[in-house]
């Protein structure tokens, strides 16, 4: 990938990232989820201490005060060096930026430094058993009782809830108001009595997401982010980050994935292995998809630098991301043929276990952060401004 032209500072920045990565012990990532979490949490601390976390966040909030372009350069170099991303991405890319925008200065001083360093992980308590795409119909309640909220209800699909110290909770604080207007955004300490978490096993075999139950959980009113009953606006902001910034990191991963697939097939072929006729087209397809997403990303960066977020273009980006991720991993994993069934058999020349898992994982991208259908609804409503029925 190349720097946008005429920005020497980015080239310098890239060089300093490279130098640092070359001089640093890059951890290898264990397969087991619990170990992986511990290793990556420590890695986030290392990155934070070296000034590589919160790159585009303001200095006042504990960041580096640089631009989203610097963040992208860092993500690219991290991926190039085959170094893992920090683990706390829900905090860093999804929830954190909303807290930075909407929380009071005391809240930011308390919450943001450990969010960045990885000392305190965050989860996003939005979806419920009966509120998925129709998020605003959520039923978890937070009743005001003196200087505290009392929270009751259930969340589901909450990623990393079992590892999180904090939950960005959407709860109903006014059940008489129209459904979008009675919701508040509350930071809940997951160690509070009455919070219980039950991990759910995903298709990949990992347990990243969980069910979370709230049973008379008492939360100080001071944990309210923004105004009472104004949580829906903040939730939209959070979702736009999930559709935007998070997308950038993923894009870099696909780029590396495609290069790795080429490298594996190249090695396989030079070792005398057979290469199916469709291989070239499939790999080419993955390559073309990533180039398209990369072009799209440049536009997104320009939009972010101009501060035009959130925007209905976030949904265009998310939809593109969904398609590209699924194309990349389907194209590559299809090259395994029947050897997709044998995780440790090298006959197809590809790392079967890895590509099959990535392919499974790619089926989630068009569901989380709002399904592809929901993104299209948003594009039709807000970008194309089509009349509604």
């Amino acid at each position: 990938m190349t720097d946008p032209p005429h920005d020497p500072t980015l080239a310098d920045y890239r060089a300093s990232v490279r130098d640092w990565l070359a001089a640093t012990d890059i951890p290898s990532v264990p397969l087991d989820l619990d170990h992986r979490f511990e290793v990556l949490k420590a890695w986030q601390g290392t990155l934070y201490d070296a000034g590589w976390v919160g790159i585009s966040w303001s200095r006042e909030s504990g960041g580096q005060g640089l631009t989203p372009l610097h963040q992208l350069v860092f993500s690219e170099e991290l991926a190039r060096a085959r170094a893992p991303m920090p683990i706390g991405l829900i905090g860093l890319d999804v929830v954190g930026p909303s807290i930075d925008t909407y929380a009071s200065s005391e809240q930011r001083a308390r919450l943001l430094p450990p969010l960045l360093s990885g000392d305190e992980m965050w989860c996003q308590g939005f979806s419920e058993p009966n509120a998925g795409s129709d998020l605003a119909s959520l039923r978890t309640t937070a009743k005001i009782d003196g200087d505290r909220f009392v929270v009751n209800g259930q969340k589901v699909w909450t990623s990393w809830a079992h590892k999180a110290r904090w939950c960005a909770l959407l709860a109903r604080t006014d059940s008489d108001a129209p459904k979008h207007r009675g919701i508040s955004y509350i930071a809940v300490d997951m160690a509070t009595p009455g919070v219980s978490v039950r991990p759910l096993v995903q298709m990949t075999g990992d347990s990243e997401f969980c069910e979370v139950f709230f049973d008379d959980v008492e939360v100080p009113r001071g944990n309210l982010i923004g105004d009472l009953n104004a949580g829906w606006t903040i939730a939209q902001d959070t979702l736009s980050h999930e559709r935007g910034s998070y997308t950038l990191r993923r894009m870099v991963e696909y780029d590396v994935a495609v290069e790795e697939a080429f490298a594996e097939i190249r090695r396989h072929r030079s070792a005398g292995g057979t290469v199916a006729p469709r291989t070239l087209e499939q790999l080419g397809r993955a390559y073309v998809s990533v180039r398209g997403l990369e072009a799209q990303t440049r536009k997104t960066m320009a939009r972010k630098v101009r501060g035009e977020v959130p925007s209905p273009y976030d949904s265009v980006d998310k939809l593109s991301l969904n398609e590209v991720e699924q194309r990349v991993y389907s194209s590559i994993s299809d090259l395994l043929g029947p050897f997709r069934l044998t995780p440790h058999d090298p006959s197809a020349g590809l790392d079967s276990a890895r590509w099959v898992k990535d392919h499974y994982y790619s089926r989630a991208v068009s569901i989380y952060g709002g399904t592809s259908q929901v993104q299209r609804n948003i594009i039709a409503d807000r970008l194309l401004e089509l009349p509604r029925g």
Partner: protein
Amino acid sequence: MGSAADDVLTAVTAFLDHRYGDGIRLALLEGNDDGASLRQAAAADGWFDLAVPEKHGGVGLALNDLVPAFRLFGERLAVGPFVEQMVLPALLLSELNLDEATRLRIQALRSGTHLLAWADPGISLDWCAGTVSTRNGRLNGEIRLVRYAPHCSELLVVADSPAGAQLCLVAAAASGLSIESIESADPGVPLAIVRFVDVPASSAVMADGMDAMRVIALMRAWSRIMFAAELTGMARRALTLTLDHIVTREQFGAPIATFQAVRQIAATAAQRVILLENFSEAVAEDASTQSADLLSLSAMAFKAAAGELARGVGEDAIQLHGGIGFTYEYELQWYYKRILALRTWYGDEIELMAEIGRLRLAA
């Protein structure tokens, strides 16, 4: 996009607003106008000078500054030998050390009265469009698909010789050369089979060996970029027509745009068009700093995406128009036919993806 690109786009827009009304467009698309007067007006407006180096009397713009104009050609369905007249001569003049006589012949194309066609077997990867070879100073063979050859005065030929690739410039009137017009299903674009029987090659060779390969690769890359830009513009127009239609057409007592099935298709089409537009900007932006190999690869990737996505947008556009979309009278069909035509030219997505795979695997 640089300001030069903006200036070109503004000028081309004004020209098309003024000169390219529905009447002349239909006449061109239906083959009732051979495009000569439009071509000459474009020449008079300086189009064919834009990317020609200043030392050859041109304006000296970079080819990437022309990309937005090619998108506009697509959007307005402006048909003409624009790649042949605006891109190829500029590349030949800037990349090759030509002898005086050849240089003058290329420069003469700027007037618009002389027309270049390109006989290139490389227009397809999976289908054989023919071959031309040089032996003992003579060109022999045929190329079965040559755009604009029926009207051309000069023919650029990619030939193979025992010493490798050759790039030749042959006058359309040269002895031994025959140009047979054939029916064309690419609206507004005449096609011909070009045959070579002992055509003298000695004075025709512009480049051979590595030098020829290098320039041929550049010409193919830029052709792909410009055709992909046209496809992008056509996809944009198909989307615009569709959005206009679905908010006005009513069924079941409401605009069809209120039905979710319709909205979802429109949103998908919009996402595809936006992605292509961003792709075109990224490729144009990178072109000035990229190595030739990377430029070729980017051009293939952009062309692959454009062929595939523009076709999808065109098909969804027809679907959302219902019966009217299937009529000859309504303009959408012209867009769809030109999308299908340009999709194949210099490789459809399947050919190009396989080629990209081959190149990257060899890397």
